[in-house]
């Protein structure tokens, strides 16, 4: 979307980081790490 303003682009990136990286991504990573640890033990 070339017409997206700089502020809107910044908020889009912020939303992706908050919701999908630090939020959902971190949660799934923690679950994956715990399941790997359980497999090893």
């Amino acid at each position, binding site marked *: 979307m070339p017409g997206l303003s700089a502020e809107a682009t910044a908020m889009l990136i912020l*939303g992706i980081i*908050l919701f999908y990286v630090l*939020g959902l991504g971190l949660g799934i990573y*923690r679950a994956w790490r*715990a399941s790997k640890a359980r497999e090893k033990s």
Partner: protein
Amino acid sequence: MSSAYEYWKRRRGFILATIGSAIGLGNIWRFSWLCYRNGGGAFLVPYIVFLLVFGIPLMILEFMLGHYFRGATPKVFRKIRENLEPIGWLAIVNTFILCTYYSVVLAWVMDYIGLSATVAWKTVEGVGPTFKALLSNPGYVIIGLTITWLIAWYTCYTGIVSGIERACTYAIPILWILSAVLVVRGVTLPGSDIGINWLLTPSAQAFSGSAIIDAAGQILFTLSVFGTTMIVYASYLAPRSEIPNSAWITSFANCGFSFFFAFATWGIIGYLMHVMNVTTPADLPVPLSGAGLAFVTIPTAVTLLPGAPITTAIFGTIFFVILWLAGYTSLISVIEPVYAALRDKFGISRKKGIALVSLLAYIISLVYAFQPDLIDPVDFVVGSTNAVWIVLLEAIIAGYFFNLKVLRDHVNPDAEWKLGAWYDVLIKIVTPIILIIVLGWGLSTTTHVSPVSILTVVVIIIAATILSGLKWKEEEGKVM
């Protein structure tokens, strides 16, 4: 009391079921509008803060209560203190009434799947009259209502694993995939960047005190933490299960979906602005939120798509299938806790309990099919005000009538991140303060109070009093 207690087959199934409960119609037709109205991207800041300071903590609390006490809300509260049982029944009756009118909206959606596939409104001018004709034609609504209730009844009737877990295991991925199709179509339409700029560009003027209240309210309503569903769903977790991180994943999947779908909605709104040659969304002659967005704005937009009427049928149908799946996984999640409460108290079997709840709810929902005007005043009580009251009482009961450390010690050995003493502060102090402010603001600014709202409150109190006064089948509530 049923001796063979049911458990989720997989953790993934439990998480998908809780995501299915949390993602509902509001994610699709309310979040993005709140974002636009309350300062665009600036709205995301209080939204995330409230998610972290009371949304996720409340979901963890409901998971812990259900898992620790193994039952529905009346049983949980009775085990904390015997005279608190009526509050549990207030939550259950409230949830039961919610499912009666929610199913009617879902029936409209189901009817619209058929109407979209055939482009029944034909032209933009036909969109409004088509929706009005549906509302004034109860016979047509009853067909959608009957199909919806048969599917919901069968899902719950077949049990936790074969019914709810299996349904959500398919429905939630399909929901995301279809949403991705709509998002791609939305953001590639001419003018979509106009709509998305309006959605995301931070605006200091639009960001006010009401934006903060809206963010808190939206977090509360979007996560399905109203004292029933999440408690009962967590009660079906195996004895040693992970809880805090499951609540984290559920909450972010839900809020992430709202954010994701906003691009479909506002890409389409931008396209409408482009086609209708208007400069602000407020100038559009169509609603930007709620049922109006779903049943008027989206059909209008898809009618104007390049490649219509084939693209109208394809993308219109996809939109209403998404809406129906989101509503269906929420509907089954409000039937289950009502049955679970009856099972706990009266020892009723799943087959009989689900049939009783579904049949009674279906009969009551017919009233709304004939009188759709009743939905708003009833929803004001059940879906807005009572939900806040109940969660407020839940936080106070768990925080002050029970020892939260017992719950933390119960879940921490299996937790993927541990709950410390900070968690008690969030539940005992921060959450009640936020909820009291949300409730006070909502009641002081509302224009929804009507005789129907008052009657709804009276019915809920009478029903909860009667249900809590009846005898427990095995009188084991104290020690179970």
